[in-house]
């Protein structure tokens, strides 16, 4: 994988996570208290820095084969989790990820929560909401950046991609002061899921001792293969859903016709108001 592909994959994956973290930070900051929100964010960043400082060097102690096996398995499982959600959303079985809706729910919960501070923090609710949101989404950013960077022997570039994503999303969020509902998050998640699963499959199999036909070039076949499988599943599920829906839709449309309104003379030249 060349440097551009590494940076782009990590950038897009981390941007998705950053959008989700931003939604939580905005909900906590705008409805509760910005100072406590930033304190929560800072505390989460410190924890993440400790995780990076501990896990990063520890990974270099493992032989590359073992690392690829474990990391590949984790990435593949992680990717499948993303793809499952993305396909269910794309085929209509699950509601689309809606940052505006999530923001509204977080705001409602934040407004309803009791005020009050603890341990020198002015608003404990804002602190914990921000801390949890940044830590959870940040862990995913760290996981993706470390696994991709370490497997490619270029942690610096992966970290650059992750940092760029976080900075861009934070900058746009500060400018907009609103959740980034227009970011095509579902499509991005679909793409990232394909990449995570493909790279996880590639590295995991290599770690198990496989020699891929064409070596690294096998990825050029593997990524489209996984993408096509996902598109195929999406199409199949959409068809299954539309096959089931006409029965309900037909019943709904037929009902007004089979039970006509009381007979009455036509009100005017335009005739009775029909079905729309």
């Amino acid at each position, binding site marked *: 994988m060349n440097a551009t592909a590494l940076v782009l994959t990590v950038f897009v994956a981390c941007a998705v996570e950053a959008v989700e973290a931003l939604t939580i930070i905005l909900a906590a900051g705008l409805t509760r208290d910005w100072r406590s929100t930033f304190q929560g964010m800072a505390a989460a960043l410190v924890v993440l820095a400790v995780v990076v400082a501990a896990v990063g060097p520890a990974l270099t102690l493992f032989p590359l084969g073992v690392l690829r096996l474990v990391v590949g398995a984790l990435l*593949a499982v992680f990717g499948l989790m993303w793809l499952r959600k993305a396909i269910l959303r794309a085929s209509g079985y699950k509601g689309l990820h809606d940052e505006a809706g999530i923001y509204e729910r977080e705001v409602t919960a934040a407004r309803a929560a009791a005020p009050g501070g603890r341990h020198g923090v002015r608003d404990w609710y804002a602190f914990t909401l921000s801390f949890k949101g940044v830590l959870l989404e940040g862990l995913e950013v760290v996981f993706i950046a470390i696994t991709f960077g370490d497997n490619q022997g270029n942690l610096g570039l992966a970290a650059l991609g992750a940092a760029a994503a976080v900075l861009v999303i934070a900058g746009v969020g500060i400018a907009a002061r609103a959740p980034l509902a227009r970011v095509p998050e579902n499509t991005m998640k679909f793409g990232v899921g394909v990449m995570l699963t493909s790279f996880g499959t590639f590295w995991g199999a290599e770690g*198990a001792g496989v020699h891929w*036909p064409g070596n690294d070039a096998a990825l050029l076949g593997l990524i489209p293969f996984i993408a096509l499988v996902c598109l195929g599943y999406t199409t199949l599920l959409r068809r299954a859903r539309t096959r089931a829906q006409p029965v309900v839709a037909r019943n709904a449309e037929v009902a007004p016709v089979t039970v006509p309104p009381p007979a009455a003379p036509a009100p005017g030249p335009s005739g009775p108001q029909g079905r729309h």
Partner: protein
Amino acid sequence: MPGWLRSFGAFWYDFVIGDDWRGAAVVVLALALTGLLVHEAGVNAWWLLPAGVTAALGWSLRHATAGKS
């Protein structure tokens, strides 16, 4: 088991495995089989994990949508 340990375990289970364990189970099984085929039988089973991932995704989706359409 202390509550905090259970919460810690639940957090990592949710973080790595997520809503459905099927994907993780098939990936681990396919990797183990791949290793066995490569090291014990001398078969370069590069095709096994992509096939496993495809099957795992299909199984998980089938389970998620069963009776919902």
